[in-house]
């Protein structure tokens, strides 16, 4: 493994790869810092650019945007009390109070350090577990694939922040939308509404850009208050924490990393839920929970370690099973397929050079991010004073040209506009978009594997229980459902008391 990793470093340190790693993490930090634009939008916008690159550099850059955004996302949470990305929402709770106390610098330093530690520890796990899981997955047949996708989708929709039933409904809708287009077994056209462009199915980038890009922009333009004109300055000297403050942070960071790695590796659940869970965990184990919400450094360190660990661990199921860790990784997987690389159990053996090059680039990228986020933090802080009314027309332009360039097709741009309106409606009514997208990506695979499993078992659903691995996945899924139901019932019972 060590020499494979060294070869990987050889790939990742070559001029072009290194350059695109730097571009990726810088772009990631940028969109992470700016509220209202996230890694999803940045990745889809830069997709057309990566068509012109060789696949390794393209992947290195896109992945860099994804994990780079996690570093930047806490800056706005700490300074402005607005999360740069959803996964940094929890950082507001203790980051903003610290900033009000004049200690924004320390908060930013701790956040960058925790991000680095969480991220790099998770890369180690990725290095060991991805090849292991891929080997295990060689024994997977259709029933196993079906049940693990079911597990991922149920996990993603119920463990997310918000009402579980809405999440599940959006997952099912996403899977259903995945059936639009030509049926693979019979060649029949389903739900195309007579539109030729739908024969190959809905365009995933148009759906993603509409729901996440245009939908968010509409929400911000209509309901957002411009918090521009705030001048923030953070000097390097103000960032250095006192020694006794750092000493207490080791275990919170380790706990955060663990929570993040588990949530990230579970297909479907991503960094947002990881950061919320690790914050809750810190509050529970703390000797004095009342410090939280008033500027506790653990309240920043643990969730930051957790969301960075989750994004790196998310690559484990994505690369070894071909099951995306979350909606952004689903788009990233789509990008790999455009380059003719199919992630799955044979990816690591067939494309070992790409896999290890990518891993090496994660190490390099995290070091670059540490430099970008500690000595150069002042630049990002100043960027926050750009008003939103200047940025959103430019963002819309990048969305339009990006969607257009994928197939040189204006129809996809029309589609994006429609999905934008739908996405806005979903934000306002509290229906989450990420499960929909994940369902949409996994849907066609699920249908395929369900059909094959039942054909294999002559129509007997018992096949999912008779096979031990598949039965295990089903049992975990049932456990998650049960856990959610109990939680929902308990909340419903406790509401009257809370009101009284």
């Amino acid at each position: 493994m060590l020499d494979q990793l060294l070869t990987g470093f050889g790939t990742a340190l070559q001029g072009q790869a290194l350059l695109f790693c730097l571009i990726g993490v810088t772009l990631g930090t940028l969109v992470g810092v700016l509220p209202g634009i996230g890694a999803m939008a940045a990745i889809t916008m830069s997709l057309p650019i990566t068509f012109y690159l060789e696949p390794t550099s393209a992947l290195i850059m896109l992945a860099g945007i994804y994990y780079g955004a996690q570093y930047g996302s806490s800056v706005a949470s700490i300074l402005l009390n607005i999360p740069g990305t959803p996964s940094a929402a929890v950082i507001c709770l203790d980051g903003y109070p610290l900033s009000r106390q004049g200690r924004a610098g320390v908060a930013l330093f701790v956040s960058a350090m925790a991000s680095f530690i969480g991220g790099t520890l998770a890369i180690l796990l990725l290095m060991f577990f991805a090849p292991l899981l891929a080997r295990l997955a060689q024994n997977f047949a259709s029933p196993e694939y079906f049940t693990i996708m079911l597990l991922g989708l149920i996990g993603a929709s119920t463990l997310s922040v918000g009402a579980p039933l809405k999440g599940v409904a959006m997952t099912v809708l996403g899977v259903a939308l995945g059936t639009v287009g030509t049926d693979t077994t019979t060649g029949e056209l389903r739900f195309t509404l007579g539109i030729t462009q739908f024969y190959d199915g809905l365009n995933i980038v148009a759906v993603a850009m509409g729901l996440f890009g245009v939908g968010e922009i509409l929400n911000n333009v209509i309901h957002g208050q411009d918090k521009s004109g705030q001048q923030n300055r953070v000097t390097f000297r103000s960032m250095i924490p006192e020694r006794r403050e750092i000493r207490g942070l080791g275990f919170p960071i380790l706990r955060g990393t663990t929570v993040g790695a588990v949530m990230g590796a579970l297909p479907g659940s991503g960094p947002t839920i990881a950061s919320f869970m690790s914050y809750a965990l810190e509050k529970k184990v703390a000797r004095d929970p009342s410090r939280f919400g008033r500027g506790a450094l653990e309240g920043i360190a643990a969730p930051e370690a957790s969301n960075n660990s989750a994004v790196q661990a998310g690559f484990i199921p994505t690369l070894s099973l071909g099951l995306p860790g979350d909606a952004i990784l689903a788009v990233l997987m789509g990008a790999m397929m455009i380059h003719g690389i199919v992630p799955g159990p044979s990816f690591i053996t067939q494309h070992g050079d790409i896999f290890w090059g990518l891993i090496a680039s994660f190490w390099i990228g995290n070091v670059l991010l540490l430099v970008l986020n500690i000595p150069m933090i002042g630049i990002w802080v100043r960027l926050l004073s750009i008003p939103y009314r200047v940025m959103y027309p430019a963002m819309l332009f990048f969305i339009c040209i990006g969607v257009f360039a994928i197939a040189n097709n204006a129809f996809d741009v029309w589609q994006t506009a429609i999905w934008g309106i739908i996405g806005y409606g979903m934000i306002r009514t509290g229906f989450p978009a990420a499960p929909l997208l994940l369902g949409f990506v996994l849907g066609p695979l699920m249908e395929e594997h369900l059909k094959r499993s039942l054909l294999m078992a002559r129509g007997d659903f018992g096949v999912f229980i008779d096979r031990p691995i598949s039965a295990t996945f089903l049992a975990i899924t049932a456990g998650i459902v049960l856990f959610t139901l109990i939680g929902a019932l308990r909340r419903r019972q406790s509401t009257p008391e809370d009101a009284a």
Partner: protein
Amino acid sequence: MQTWFKTRAPGFLRARAGGALVIAAGAFFVLGGMQHELGTLRRMGPGAFPVALGLMLLVMGAALTLVGDDQQPPANGAQAPVLRPMLCVFGGIIAFAFLAPRLGFVPATIALMVSSALARPENTPLFIAVMALAMAFLGWAVFVVGLGVPLFAFAWKW
């Protein structure tokens, strides 16, 4: 009864709109799926999977509608005007999609930038003009010349 329509009905309807839309989506997939062969469990036809999903959506939509929505939508700026920004942004994207293949990249980009910038009343005409022209030029240099996106700067193809 009249006061109910005035004060409670909007909230009542808003709490149930999401569920109703989920029911509509479910009905679409059930009815659309029925037009294809359902097949048997052993050999599922092209209609079976969508119909099953549609039925699940119907059940969940019914549950969401009956229970209603106890979660309030994001409260910030609830009274903000919706129609103008919505039309400006939507119209801008549609204008880009319509104009790019017909009049070319530059007019399409200018239309998109002007229309979408008008969504916020604080954007001044001078600012909008400068931004639209700058983006048209930079975008043309980067995407059309640099990356080879097959669009002409100007065209005439109605």
